[in-house]
Every structure is written in structure tokens, then in C-alpha cells.
């Protein structure tokens, strides 16, 4: 299993969501909207897509829960350790407050789409 994965992973947010909407922050800072490319070229082996109408627009269910592993318990490395894992021009999403800064590679996030994290004690969800 790769780091930052768990067996029951899905591209979803962790619980408790009932309270989360008041306390969770969504980071859409990056070209997250670009991600629909996954639906642009649907492989033939996926077969027919499920379509659902929501607020007058069609939602296409491209992936089932679990197909893309979200990250629920992210682990981090320091800048000093990162040279072995990151390229100089590798694009990053940055979230920061006065005390800490977290960075997420968009190349890496392509494989996960969602990271459930905490910053400054606040729950955040980073999407790409």
C-alpha cells in the first residue's frame, strides 16, 4: 500500500460530515476544474455511464466509490527531505496560516483527487 492510503479508501470526505459543513474548509485553489478531463475520454471498458439529473444538469457517474483512493490520514515530509521526491518545477497547492504551511503536488493529487487534512486545528479538504 502506498503512503497516505488506507484500505477502505474512496474519493470522499471523512466523517463526521453532519458537523463538518460548519467547520470544514474546501480548498479548490487549483485548477481543480480541469479534472473533468477524466470524463472527456471514457475508456470503452467502462461501458455505459450512469446519468443523474441534479438541478437541471446531468451528473455522469464515471467512477464508483473506491475507484480513486482519497487520502484520509495524510503524512508529510519536511522541505529538507523533499528533494528526493519533488522536482523543482513541480506544481503545488499551498495552504498556510501564521504557523504552518502544507503543500500538495498536483501531479500526485491526480491519483487521489481528494485529501482530507487539518491545518491550524481546522479540517480542510483539498481537491484537485
Amino acid at each position: 500500500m502506498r503512503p497516505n492510503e488506507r484500505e477502505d479508501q474512496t474519493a470522499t470526505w471523512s466523517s463526521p460530515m453532519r458537523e463538518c459543513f460548519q467547520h470544514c474548509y474546501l480548498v479548490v485553489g487549483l485548477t481543480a476544474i480541469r479534472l473533468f478531463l477524466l470524463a472527456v475520454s471514457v475508456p470503452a471498458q467502462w461501458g455505459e455511464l450512469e446519468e443523474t439529473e441534479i438541478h437541471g444538469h446531468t451528473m455522469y457517474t464515471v467512477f464508483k466509490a473506491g475507484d480513486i483512493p482519497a487520502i484520509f490520514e495524510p503524512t508529510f515530509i519536511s522541505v529538507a527531505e523533499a528533494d528526493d521526491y519533488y522536482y523543482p518545477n513541480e506544481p503545488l497547492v499551498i495552504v498556510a496560516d501564521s504557523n504552518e504551511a502544507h503543500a500538495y503536488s498536483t501531479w500526485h493529487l491526480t491519483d487521489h483527487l481528494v485529501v482530507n487534512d487539518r491545518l491550524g486545528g481546522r479540517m480542510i479538504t483539498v481537491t484537485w
Partner: protein
Amino acid sequence: MWRDALVIEDIETRSLWSQVTGECISGKLEGKSLLLFPSSLTTYVEFKKQYPHGKLLAKLDKGPPRSPYDLYFADDSQLGTFGRVDNFERLKGKDIVFGLRLDGKQVAISQDYLLERQFAVLKQFSPPVVVTYDAVSNSVAAFSLPAQLADSSDLTLVDDRITLNSGRTAWNARTGQLLSGEGSNLASRPITSAFWFAWVSFFPETELLK
């Protein structure tokens, strides 16, 4: 995919959430919204410089030095979900914009605009928002100006610093940290990088700087 963007599901309630707006579009929490958290875009080499004590998401290995979507990004004919046609006005569908949503208003700034100027002050918002851009690292960030500076006319960008009063007051253009003069750090604001076709799909009335 919904409106050419990702839909996210939460485990506990199985509600569905729009990645673009943070709103719950279906399920038990429909109508609720998550708060957008400020973030910025940059490169690893720039992050090391600005945040030497920062942390990076661990990964198994370095991987290939490219995005798996490079071909998609380079192909202007591929838009949206299942064959959307590029008949967009104001910009081409695959043009990159940086968008802000504040005070019920939406403003998008084309990448070409920022490539030329590296800097924009948006007085449509109260307080005004300053957007900084570095073409080398493709770094973009947005900050709210203190209310007392709303009418300042000599705000400018010099050597990766937002400066005021002929440089006597300056902030780091990437982090908003106060570097000199009186005042405090600038507050970050959420800014979204997107293809024009996706942004205008969600926000058809958006103002555009190009």
C-alpha cells in the same frame, strides 16, 4: 462529473458536493456549503524559498516529471464532458483564468492579463483584493488589502514585493507577509485556477479582466 467538474461524496451522509462551489447539491445536507479556504499555486522550488519550514504531502517516489494530463492541457479541441464545443465568447474555452468569488461577485482574470502585468488590484471587492502572479513559477495568490488602503494609488509590485508609499511599506507578494513599514500581514483570499469554459459555465455573469 457535474457541470464539467468533480462531484465529491462524503462517507457519513453520502451527500454529493460540488467541487467548484463547495455546495451540497444532493443528499441529506443539500443546500449546505463548505467554506472556501484560501490557497495558492506555486512550484516546489518557490515553496522551499517561501516556506522553509513547510511540509509537503508524502509520496512513494518522485514519479515522472510531468502531469499525466499534459496532452489534454495542450489540446484546445478537448473541452468539458463528452464533446463540448468551443463556442465561448470573451475567451477561448481552454484559456486559463484565475477566478475569485467574494461578496456575491465573481471576477476572472485571464492568465494572459497577468502574464503581461503580474499584478491586479480588484476594487470591485470591499476591501479591494490584490492578485499577484509570477510567470516563472506560475505562482498566483490573492490578498485583501486593509480597508485604510482601499484608495491607495501607489500600490504596485516590485521584485516580488507588493509596495506602498514608494516602497516604505512592503509585503511578500507570494505569502502576504509584512516585510517593512507599518501594518500587518495581508489576509489571503481563495483564488481558483480554471479553464474559461468551466468557470463561465458556473458563473456566466462573471466579470472578466483580459
